[in-house]
């Protein structure tokens, strides 16, 4: 993959998603990580697998795929560890609790992307598409990047991977979650879409979609047992 510090990538979307889609979600393996990233990363080889930089990329054999051939499968313990970090990063334990428990953070919406808020992202096909922020605010504020779920109004099928949010026509494409540098997010109030925020119900649905797309059921069960 591009970038001198990224040496490999861990595919996290499940086999059913991968069988149907040209793009898959990956976590990069990096030789260096940010100090704030340590809580979301697991040591791997001479570097770290980091859950804080979910990326949607083309899978081989697509000509645009940045991924090379398979290197190895993660050992069970290492896979479980990074799954737990991913759950924490995506704030899934609170979202999946019964009843859901999470704080909708307050903050300056023009300073950095806020969890649960909707922003327009980079230009994609001549248009700035809407994304729901799913990365934690502390990370978004300091890391210079944020992770978002793409929304679409084109898909007409409701599914746990594409839950309806906001209204009857908008769906979150949970498998198309990706991370952008902060300067790719349109933070100014005048650039915000309407509506510009989600409901708690929307975020719970997105959390379920992410957990299923990334096959995090066992990890959430582990977290539940630890609490």
């Amino acid at each position, binding site marked *: 993959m591009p*970038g001198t510090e990224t040496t490999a990538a861990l595919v996290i979307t499940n086999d059913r998603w991968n069988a149907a889609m040209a793009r898959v979600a990956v976590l990069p393996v990096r030789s260096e990580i940010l100090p704030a990233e340590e809580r979301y990363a697991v040591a791997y080889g001479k570097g770290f697998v980091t859950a804080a930089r979910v990326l949607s990329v083309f899978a081989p054999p697509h000509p645009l795929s940045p991924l090379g051939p398979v290197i190895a499968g993660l050992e069970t313990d290492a896979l479980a560890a990074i799954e737990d970090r991913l759950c924490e990063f995506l704030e899934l334990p609170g979202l999946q609790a019964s009843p859901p428990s999470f704080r909708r953070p307050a903050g300056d919406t023009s300073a950095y992307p806020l969890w649960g808020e909707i922003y327009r992202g980079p230009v994609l096909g001549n248009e700035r598409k809407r994304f729901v922020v799913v990365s934690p605010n502390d990370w978004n504020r300091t890391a210079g990047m944020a992770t978002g779920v793409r929304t679409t109004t084109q898909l007409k099928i409701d599914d746990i991977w594409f839950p309806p949010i906001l209204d009857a026509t908008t769906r979150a494409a949970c498998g198309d979650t990706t991370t952008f*540098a902060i300067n790719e997010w349109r933070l100014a109030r005048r650039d915000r879409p309407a509506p510009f925020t989600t409901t708690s119900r929307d975020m719970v649905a997105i959390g379920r979609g992410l957990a299923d797309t990334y096959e995090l059921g066992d990890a959430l069960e582990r977290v539940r047992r630890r609490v």
Partner: protein
Amino acid sequence: MTSHSSRVSVPVPDRVRSAAKYPDLVDLPEGASAASIYERLLEYGYDTAVRAKRHREQLAAAIAYSRDPEQRRIGPDLQRAALRKGVL
């Protein structure tokens, strides 16, 4: 609320009860206990009635999404934006 129980009592229909005599139907050896046969039947039933159906629906949704012209059009830009300096 999620709860798990390893032992439950449920009525067993006659046609299901007879399965205990045919362990080979659920890939178990001759002499397998009725409990193990019923356990395997529950697993197979769950896979058929719930998981397989759900997986088929998910696959259909993912295929519909993968064929969406907008989704195909923005794919390269989405990857390009994600791989720009600042993330990797």
